[in-house]
């Protein structure tokens, strides 16, 4: 528990110090609980998620970094490897391929990479996976783009 707190606080300080280092990712620690984090990530360019801002929720286990954080999308996203209802993400580094050298920041990076390169063969969103598997890239892209506009674009006010 002590080790995970210390490690998370280091990450927290690093995030504060290097705020501008990675303009695609904004990581914020919960006010009262260092085991709860939120991230805003930008949809990668030249993908149907471009222009969108997606919110991720992190829940960090007490044996972090020996165990991976739990991450899910709070923003609705149409992507084969993300559960449409729960936001659960299917990504190897969050499961069997986890290494304690990863940080919350680099996990965000891997998720952005997953957005740009979906894996239709291990789908959590079957509709999206089927579209891609059947070769309907256009259909997949227009659905994904539609949900990006609906759910991930900042509202004009």
């Amino acid at each position, binding site marked *: 528990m002590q080790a995970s707190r210390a490690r998370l606080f280091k*990450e927290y300080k690093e995030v504060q110090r290097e705020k501008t280092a*990675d303009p695609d990712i904004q990581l914020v620690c919960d006010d*009262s609980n260092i085991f709860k984090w939120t991230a805003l990530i*930008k949809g990668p360019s030249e993908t149907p998620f471009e222009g969108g801002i997606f919110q991720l929720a992190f829940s960090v286990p007490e044996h972090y970094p020996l165990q991976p954080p739990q991450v899910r999308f709070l923003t609705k996203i149409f992507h084969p490897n993300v559960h449409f209802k729960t936001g659960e993400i299917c990504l190897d580094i969050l499961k069997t391929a986890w290494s304690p050298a990863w940080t919350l920041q680099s996990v965000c*990076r891997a998720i952005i990479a997953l957005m*740009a*390169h979906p894996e239709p063969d291990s789908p959590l969103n079957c509709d999206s996976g089927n579209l*891609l598997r059947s070769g309907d*890239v256009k259909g997949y892209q227009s659905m994904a783009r539609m949900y990006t506009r609906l759910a991930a674009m900042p509202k004009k006010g």
Partner: protein
Amino acid sequence: MTTTAPPPTPPSLELKTYWCHECDMSVSLTSSHSPSPSPPLCPQCHTHFLELMDSPFSQNDADSFLHSSSSLFDVVFQDALLLLAPSPRKTHTTETILPIITVTETLLSLLDPNGVVLCAVCKDAISVDEEAKQLPCDHLYHSDCITPWLRLRSSCPLCRFRISEDENEDENDEDDEEDLNGADVMREMMARMAELSEDDFYGLRMTLNYIASRHELLHSNASGGGDHHDASSEVGGDVDGES
């Protein structure tokens, strides 16, 4: 007595979050007077080892975040998506239990020209006279940091070098195909990464490697057909589009 002093502004009870270095936890305090003369006190241990933590972002932050320009990292990252990574070398060693060593200045300067070696598990610098373990791949960790990890998985957190001799875990399906060109570009990119972040706190090199190798995997999976080759890396990978 014509002018009266402006009424004291009502104390705005603002909830602020601090990190108590003594308790090693975050505490929330209400700051009643703005330019408070006395430093805040931890309600748990009553010390002053408090550090202010930032409040969460507002909508404005999100807006400026959206419109902020991309950095060098962005460029490097985009490159990574197009690259092929050399697969990690796998040799087998019978050395299951690694000896604990005492860190010397010589060892640190051997591993890093500036003698600054970060333990990838706790992200702290490894200091002289600390107890450490060096893996066969040369990666160095605090002994207390790496030992619990090796009990879970006997692989290096940074390069996934396997330490134990039991190979009957997954990952046997990896073919080592040397792509000299890919390796060259990767090396050049790593050099650029090194300029970007000296101590590599976030493990960005490892992350880029992972992204690149995953990209390679996706491509080799998708283009099983043969002559069909995609160089423009279309979204969704190289989906076989026969109709």
